[in-house]
């Protein structure tokens, strides 16, 4: 039997009170499964960035965690509005965040590049206005 653990998390748009809960829960789960601490750290950072992206920029979305003995996959999916130019969005420092969001300490334009840096495999597809899907793979 192949062992796989899967879990879904909802991320609300602009729900700053709950934003961060999903990545916190993901981190805790991986610690209890016994994933190496340095990998947990990378996943924690990447999933936190992903979760905040959904909360800040999208109309809400979902995160999906899948763990098996050789890899961890964190996938996200949101309900729009999508990213017009994905290549531009992947550039460090590029951001569409409003001043209000920047005031909160987010929106430095490091989210997507950071997620890519932290993960072993990173893919993103986006269409306007449907939404954005991201898949991050971390090897164990």
């Amino acid at each position, binding site marked *: 039997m192949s*062992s796989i*653990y899967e879990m879904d998390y909802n991320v609300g748009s602009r729900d700053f009170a709950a934003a*961060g809960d999903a990545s916190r829960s993901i981190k805790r789960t991986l610690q*209890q*499964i*016994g994933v190496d601490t340095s990998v947990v750290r990378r996943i924690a950072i990447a999933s936190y960035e992903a979760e905040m992206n959904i909360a800040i920029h999208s109309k809400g979305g979902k995160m999906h965690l899948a*763990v*098996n*003995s050789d890899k961890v996959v964190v996938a996200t999916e949101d309900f729009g509005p999508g990213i017009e130019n994905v290549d531009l969005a992947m550039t460090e420092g590029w951001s569409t965040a409003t001043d209000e969001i920047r005031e909160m300490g987010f929106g430095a334009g490091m989210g997507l590049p950071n997620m890519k840096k932290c993960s072993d495999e990173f893919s993103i597809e986006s269409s306007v206005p449907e939404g954005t899907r991201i898949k991050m793979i971390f090897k164990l």
Partner: protein
Amino acid sequence: MVIQMNNEYYHSVVLDKSKCKGCTTCLRNCPTQAIRVRNGKATIIKERCIDCGECIRVCPYHAKNAVTDKLDILKNYKYTVALPAPTTIAQFKKKISVNRILTALKDIGFDEVQEVAYGAEIVGEALKYELMEKDVKKPLISSACPAVVRMLQVRFPELIENLVHLESPMEVTARLVRKRLKEEKGLRDEEIGLVFITPCAAKATTIHSYIPWDNSHSSIDASISISEIYPEILDRIDKVQEEDLQHSTGRGLIWAHTGGESSFIAEKQIINVDGIHNVISVLEEIENGRLRELDFFEGLACIGGCVGGCLTVENTFIAKKRIMDRSLDRKAGDNDITDEMIKSAYESGFLDREGKIFPMPETPLDPNIKEAINKMETMDKIEKTLPGIDCGSCGAPGCRALAEDIVRGQASEVDCIFVLREAINELSKLMYDLSEKVVPVMKDKENEGNE
């Protein structure tokens, strides 16, 4: 009182079983979910306990306490020195001079008194040099609170390398005193008894097994709690002939409250936080990479900092006020500490922490990752069958914790009173149904009886 000791996880927090009522107060307040109620008494999961003292503080029956040493240990040494934490001074009104407090402490039976506030001033001044190192990991995280260090080992192992590499004020003071006594008085290590007067359980723990940096050895030999020694000082405070014993200035004394340590590098980007739950929430932000511009993080487990230690006697905020008042009396430069002295002590490595701090992550659900994954799934399923009200009646701090205990083989589903009640309900229905049924061989006989 039973104290179980093993080298790997020694804790000074203990339970007085005769006072424990088996209520769930400590269970709910433990930041690492290290407590379970078993057989009507609270028990501590050693690998999770960080000695923060929350349980000691919240126990309504005062059943939780910390093992510290008693005064009779003084007779084990030829020469004894009391090393009072800065908080010790805050237990007394400002009209009583620091010298008078120290003299009364010495009079209890010590050969000498040396304030930890003196070492605190040295460590504080040396912080700026560590921040100047080019390979320093930012934010630099204070290592002054052993409960926070332990929290990092258990829950934030990836942040261990951000910890300040200097020793704590208590260790630096002890090193200085030990070195001097050996050089000037020709004393051997085993003849010297350095006794820390401690505001908390966490510091008492580091002295005894030195868990935060588990491969090294403390320069301190014993610890006595402030609450234990307070009445002894009080008895002598009016009677002693005051001696000139103070070496500290206000700079060192303010380490007793939150922000004291940070004040040495006040021009930097700093966050200082107290209360273990607040510390955890900021550590999470640091771990998530949100505070990249931060230079220094001072996190202290007790509200108010060391003045809020669970082994002190005075109200935290009154104590803090007193420290602030006294800090104005003697300023930097009013003792023999100079910047050249700090610089050379820093560069010589005299202030460096001995040994490495290792991660001590909690045990995974299973040593085999495939099994751990399966158990995680089972755990989710079990959690769904539980009521989700986190009542604590099962002895675990919440439903998820019970589910975890079950997959770890340390609890059973019927430990939950709601699950148990449902099971009894079903059983009683089944019993009723069964009682209605008549065994086939008896059928005719029963009919006969009715005729």
